[in-house]
């Protein structure tokens, strides 16, 4: 699946992309349970498929983006190879970052992915820089920052939005408002819960869209991205719900079952499915998509598990550029010193 292929924006295609994300995330959970993931800091984006797919299908080849720690779905929607993603999550050398980055640090320059980030808000200002270059070089590209509602309380977001507006950069800020940052609900983190109003204050074109209908997310994203491409940066908040815990081990004891039921009822995939059926698509045809996706994602687990761990000497590679001296390994240094007399 390439980025170009993902720009098919009919509902069936949008459904398929969202299903791919959900199934992938379910397989990430399975990888963890099987003891094959690198650690347990795995943040699943189940319930947040529509911001990923709705926004990414409004992006064009050549656009760049950064994501937060819950970014698997966004990158899949931008054309990631699930095999290489799963391998990275397993810490294997066939992964996007050779097993060094992991779930929270997937990146791929070829697809415009400037990097996922484990520092909340950490990836946002890079988008200003990328947009600055796009503008300077007249490339026509937009740069999009994806982050969560929790990141809206980090100062760096405001420095970034202000500069983007000040300089008229092709930058877009997408806040995936899943209502929670770990165990803190959005209204426990701020009184100013109309998040797009903040962006407006800096002079950005800003909207909030309900994430239930991926078509609406796509339409809003297309408006905001078109504006940004023309030099008027924008902000889009997508309301959705984090279906499960913050990371793989969190059972969300701080939420009520009623709230979770209500949140999960806003399922963008169930919504799209119902709309497809209403539009005349046979259940069997949808089931065929689901099955095909399941096979694709099953294969990603097999690929990850069959892949090798990174070789030990790669530890010293890529600290600096190729051709530059690598850091001296500790053992070599000790040998050198103790062999002296």
């Amino acid at each position, binding site marked *: 699946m390439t980025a170009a292929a993902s720009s098919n924006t009919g509902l069936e295609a949008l459904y398929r992309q969202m299903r791919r994300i959900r199934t992938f995330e379910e397989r990430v959970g399975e990888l963890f349970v099987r003891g094959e993931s*690198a650690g347990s800091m795995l943040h699943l984006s189940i319930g947040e498929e529509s911001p990923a797919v709705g926004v990414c299908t409004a992006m064009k080849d050549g656009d760049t983006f950064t994501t937060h720690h819950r970014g698997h779905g966004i990158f899949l929607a931008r054309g990631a190879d699930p095999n290489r993603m799963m391998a990275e999550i397993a810490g294997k050398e066939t992964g996007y970052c050779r097993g*060094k980055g992991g779930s929270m640090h997937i990146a791929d320059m070829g697809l415009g992915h400037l990097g996922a980030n484990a*520092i909340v808000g950490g990836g946002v200002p890079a988008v200003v820089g990328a947009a600055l270059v796009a503008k300077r070089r007249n490339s026509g590209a937009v740069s999009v920052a994806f982050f969560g509602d*929790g990141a809206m309380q980090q*100062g760096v977001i405001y420095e970034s939005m202000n500069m983007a507006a000040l300089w008229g950069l092709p930058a877009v800020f997408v806040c995936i408002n899943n209502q929670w940052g770990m165990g*803190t609900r959005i209204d426990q983190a701020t009184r100013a819960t109309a998040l797009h109003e903040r962006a407006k204050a800096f002079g950005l074109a800003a909207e909030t869209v309900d994430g239930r209908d991926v078509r609406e997310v796509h339409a809003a994203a297309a408006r905001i991205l078109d504006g940004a491409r023309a030099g008027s940066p924008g902000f889009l908040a997508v309301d959705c719900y984090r279906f499960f815990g913050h990371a793989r081990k969190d059972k969300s004891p701080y939420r009520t079952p009623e709230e979770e039921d209500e949140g999960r009822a806003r399922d963008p995939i169930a919504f799209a499915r119902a709309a497809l059926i209403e539009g005349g698509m046979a259940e069997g045809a949808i089931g065929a998509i689901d099955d095909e996706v399941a096979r694709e994602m099953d294969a990603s687990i097999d690929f990850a598990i069959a892949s090798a761990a990174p070789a030990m000497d790669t530890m010293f590679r890529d600290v600096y550029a190729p051709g530059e001296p690598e850091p001296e390994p*500790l053992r070599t240094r000790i040998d050198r010193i103790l062999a002296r007399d």
Partner: protein
Amino acid sequence: MTETLTYRDAIRRALADAMRADPDVFVIGEEVGRYGGAYAVTTGLLEEFGPERMIDTPISEQGIVGTAVGAAMAGMRPVAELMYVDFIGVSMDQLCNQAAKIRYMFGGQIGVPMVLRTQGGTGRSAGAQHSQSLEAYVMHMPGLRLAMPATVADAYHLLRQSLRQPDPVVFIEHKSLYAHAEEVDLSAPVPDWGRAAIRRQGRDLVIVTYSRQVLYALEAAETLAAEGIEATVIDLRTLNPLDFATIGAEVERTGRAMVVSEGPLTAGVAAELAARISEECFDYLENPVLRIAGEDVPISVSTALETASVPGPELIADAARRLVA
């Protein structure tokens, strides 16, 4: 009374006891209250002390540390929490330009008696931005105290002692020690603030270390003892103040020293300690002071690379063996 406690329990106990003893002590940070702490250190404290003393914050590290600075200047005793030491960069201005310098810049008028609790280190495949050992940043900064407990008793007592200091203390826990359990008697005496502990004494060399590497050094010392090599293991407990008297005396007695730190080698804590030992104990040394530290690389998510990039008991034992050979 002897009891079995984990490092995590001991820190929680210290916070609770300090809050019971002093109504001015309060905790402020992300997920410290309702969630009970990302590593379950503060579980249950909200129930006892309420939301005014267990303050859950937005994700705003500059604000958290800066608020603690102001509250300390205004007369209270904040314990600010950074969920991971890796986020220290976000709050660095408040810590290094504000907290560390206020007493000096303002001519001694006022201090900033706050504690910044955080945790660092490897062991969870948490990747490059959640596994670092950044104590050198803190140790480098005049005006900041630095405590790093290795044992369960110290997790308790060093935190209580930190909360009695007149100046800002950065208190760095090790994420891989939280579940570490020991039989302890918290009423038994411990060294004063600023004093190192000799965890084991031997004639052949001194291993100077702190935090999790103390456990690794003791494991190595055990192996070495079986081979007839007797090592002293010094647990620094606080890196600032630094108890050089204890280090110096042991180095003079044994003539060989090795410094072990999990943080990256270059310009790290081990470099400072090795330089100081070389300067002050030069006439007594039979070998160069050896630094054993983290490789000069970021931490990989790959468990194999992660483990290999920091010292462990085998590396310490191997280096010690060759140092005394």
